């Protein structure tokens, strides 16, 4: 459990972390389990679902989960600190709408992209300001900005769609590496995954995020700039969501205000399925990636065997509940309930 990091001063942690204990943690927790489930599912589906194991289908599958994984990267960090950002999909929509409107009004794409990323930073900083400066709960704040940003997207673009983006850009967005079927965007995505993984699992910042999630007070007493860190996490989430909005627009070749509606739930589902606790303080990036891939693969395979979309939603929902309930139940059977809230008080007392 990542819990043991909470009482430890952040600075000392990295020295002992990457040793045997981290490897044990990987196998023993949701991270490892969900990865095994993913591998097992991929094997079963390859042999039983016609058309699943082919290069073309791999490309289809990956294209469907690229944006989910992209946004899950910063959002995982946010969730680990015990916060949430529900406005990510609306940020995608607003970015897409602004991108469309700017392109429509004749600006060059090279200029539009930085503007969109800047917009993402602004949207994220609004969340960050409300949560860290005004001390409002992130759930309430981002439910608000979820509606606000989506509403603004419709103000910007209405029910129009802007679709005349240059062919070279839109085909790049869906092109694959040689004949492997793997989309080219997977490469920059992998770079971001590695960066996020290193930050989360091998730097003091990453340790600090877990510490915050376990006990904000304890983290603050250990000298961690809790508010500053969370603020910048929201900003980064905004920027990455904007990046997702840009990619979404190019991938579908169409800027619309309703782009990516409901995507936030898919991202959060992947994060929870990946073994990250919604209360913060535990979970890892590998599990999240595996969770996103598992959700995407299940959906893809069931579609291939003609399961109707309503049933698909039911399956996804059940999967998620099982994923959340199983570790809780397991802990319960072992006779120790998850010491989520209670230890916070005694542990913050000593310093």
């Amino acid at each position, binding site marked *: 459990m990542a819990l043991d990091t909470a009482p430890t001063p952040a600075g000392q942690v990295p020295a002992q972390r990457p040793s045997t204990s981290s490897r044990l943690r990987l196998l023993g927790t949701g991270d490892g389990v969900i990865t095994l489930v993913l591998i097992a599912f991929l094997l079963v589906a*390859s*042999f039983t679902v*016609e*058309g*699943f*194991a*082919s*290069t*073309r*289908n791999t490309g*289809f599958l990956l294209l*469907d989960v690229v944006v989910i994984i992209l946004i899950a990267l910063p959002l995982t960090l946010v969730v680990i600190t015990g916060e949430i950002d529900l406005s990510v999909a609306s940020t995608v929509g607003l970015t897409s709408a602004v991108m469309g409107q700017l392109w429509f009004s004749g600006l060059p794409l090279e200029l539009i992209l930085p503007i969109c990323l800047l917009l993402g930073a602004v949207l994220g900083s609004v969340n960050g300001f409300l949560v860290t400066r005004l001390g409002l709960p992130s759930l309430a704040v981002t439910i608000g900005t979820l509606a606000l940003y989506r509403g603004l997207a419709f103000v910007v673009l209405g029910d129009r*769609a802007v*679709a005349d983006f240059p062919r070279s850009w*839109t*085909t790049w967005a*869906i092109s*694959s590496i*040689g*004949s*492997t*079927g793997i989309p080219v965007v997977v490469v920059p995505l992998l770079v971001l995954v590695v960066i996020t993984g290193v930050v989360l699992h091998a730097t003091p910042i990453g340790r600090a995020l877990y510490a915050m999630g376990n006990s904000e007070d304890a983290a603050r007493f250990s000298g961690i700039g809790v508010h500053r860190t969370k603020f910048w996490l929201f900003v980064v989430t905004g920027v990455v969501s904007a990046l997702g909005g840009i990619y*979404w627009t190019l991938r*579908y*070749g*169409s800027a*619309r205000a*309703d*782009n*990516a*509606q*409901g995507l936030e739930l898919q991202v959060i589902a992947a994060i929870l399925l990946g073994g990250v606790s919604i209360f913060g303080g535990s979970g890892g990036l590998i599990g999240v990636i595996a969770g996103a891939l598992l959700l995407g693969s299940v*959906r*893809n395979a069931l*579609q*291939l065997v*003609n399961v*109707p*979309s*309503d049933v698909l*939603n039911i399956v996804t929902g059940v999967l998620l509940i099982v994923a959340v309930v199983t570790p809780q139940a397991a802990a319960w059977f072992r006779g120790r309930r998850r010491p989520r809230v209670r230890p916070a008080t005694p542990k913050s007392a000593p310093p």
Partner: protein
Amino acid sequence: MNSFLTSRRVRGGLTGVAVAALVLATAACGGTTRGEDEGDSSGSGSSASANPDAEIPAGLKIAFLPKQLNNPYFAVADGGGEKAVGELKGEYSEVGPSEASASSQVSYINTLTQQGADVIVTSANDPNAICSALDQARSGGAKVVTFDSDTSPDCRDVFINQATAEGIAQTQIDLMADQIGGAGQVAILSATANATNQNAWIDIMKKYAADKYPDMEIVTTVYGDDEDEKSFQETQGLLQTYPELKGIISPTTVGISAAARYLSGSEYKGQVALTGLGTPNQMREFVKDGTVTAFALWNPADLGYLAAYAGAALSAGQITGAEGEKFSAGDLGDYEIGKDGEIVLGDPTVFNADNIDDFDF
């Protein structure tokens, strides 16, 4: 053989197939590349010229992908398609997202591509967002028919247009003329002031009425903004402003049902004629109680039926989607492809007390 020029993706895909086949052969698991194999053979067939005498093969996989599932309009349209596919001895399937979004249609198109569908009949949630997915499906050998809502013309083979603007406009004027004896004051209750479709129809209605029914006078056009409440109030306003009013035409389903509700509860019931575009389910009670004699709308079942036949004809090579080609669509008779690969279903269906119970949408 234009496929060499048009589609690097096909070649890339084939190399991919080879790699995948190697990998999968070692795992003793065949059949995963079926869609791609079929794709190659029928894909090259598309560049050949049309052969009107080609037989439609049995067992064509014809898939309907509506804007969303559980939408009554598309349920009826797809039902028409299922009937046609049955007549053609094909394999019918209906897939689609539970919410009408463009991106969710893409993943269903990808699935159909992967399954090796022969014909994809779809109504696009976004004219461009599903284009690249449809391109991929077509390079995989599928024929793409759009109905109700078109994509960009270069993303599909043919588009089944429910009706021409002329057909819609003239049918409504003719219905009104029938009901008021071709003479008197008529008002139009439209959707919003900038609704593209409605404005185009109203223009044609005015010209057509002036030519054909000189005694019919279109006195005004009011806008209910496709809101039930506002349409209701506008109807009330019309009857107070124009005491001599003989009839109201409402070329929008929201407007006509609101107007019917007002009329049926007022002294004007049976005195002021009402027609326009409405669905049988929303208008049934007003036809039965005598408020409305007849109204029109295209029949979505016919739309799906024609789309399935067009898809089969494409797949068999009877047509390629070029202007002037002809094919037969079962009970609906013969059709000719118009400009930009458009096929017009025909004049709207007129619903009245005699036939309204035959329809459920």
